[in-house]
């Protein structure tokens, strides 16, 4: 079973890397990009076969290590 975790910065948290990407896109002529927010993508291969149990387990991983709840949100997709 595979878990795909997206870690993103919370709304309102300044994202200087996102801003730099936005400026670079603008410089390359890609106009109309109003905002850029960047984050992390983490893929996990799990031995667990039960989807609900896998999701609960990955949720714990996100809270304990994968994300910093002060500044980041996470979302989990399991398939």
């Amino acid at each position, binding site marked *: 079973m595979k878990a795909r975790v997206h870690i993103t910065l919370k709304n309102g948290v300044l994202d*200087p890397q996102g801003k730099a990407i936005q400026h670079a896109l603008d410089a390359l002529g890609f106009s109309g990009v109003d905002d850029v927010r960047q984050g992390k993508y983490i893929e996990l291969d799990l031995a667990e076969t039960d989807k609900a149990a896998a999701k609960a387990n990955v949720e714990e991983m996100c809270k304990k290590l994968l994300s*910093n709840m002060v*500044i980041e949100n996470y979302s989990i997709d399991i398939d």
Partner: protein
Amino acid sequence: MKSAVVTFPASNCDRDMFDALEKITGKTPHHIWHQDSEIPDVDLIALPGGFSFGDYLRCGAMAARSPAIKAIMAHAERGGKVIGVCNGFQVLTEMGLLPGALMRNKSLKFACKTVQLKVENSNGTFTNAYSDGQVIDIPIAHHDGNYFADDEHWQDLKRTAKLPFVMSIKLVKQRMRQTPTDHKIILPVSLMNAAILLA
């Protein structure tokens, strides 16, 4: 004063910290490896800077889950003193001992210079040899020194006078004649430097 220095893989200046503490206190500090789950009874636990665990995932994130962390937390809960310098400070926020988080510098550049801090509260353990309003020079060197706390924690820090130092942007502009860094505040950044200056 009895002290201990905790070393993580890719810590640096831990040896400097060890020597500084030995020189100032007259007692040899304990060397603690991150996998040690017990720390001897000391007055101060010091976490050095560097790039623990290669700064993977987030600065200080892996170190904050090391076996030694539980002992550091227990020491703090007993009222023991803890200081984190640079990456050590990031570890303290990642382990939840201090509020907030340190993010990538707004400029996206590595900042390496001397900054001026105003002593906001000279009643603290780390500031009581200073006087209120005194301006001190502190060296900084970091890529992720952009302190962030949500409004609730930020207000709490201000209200409860837990901010020992505040970066004086006006003074920085006056003295350095450059734009200020991203820091809104720097908590006890460097006891080592402060202590050496006072010694």
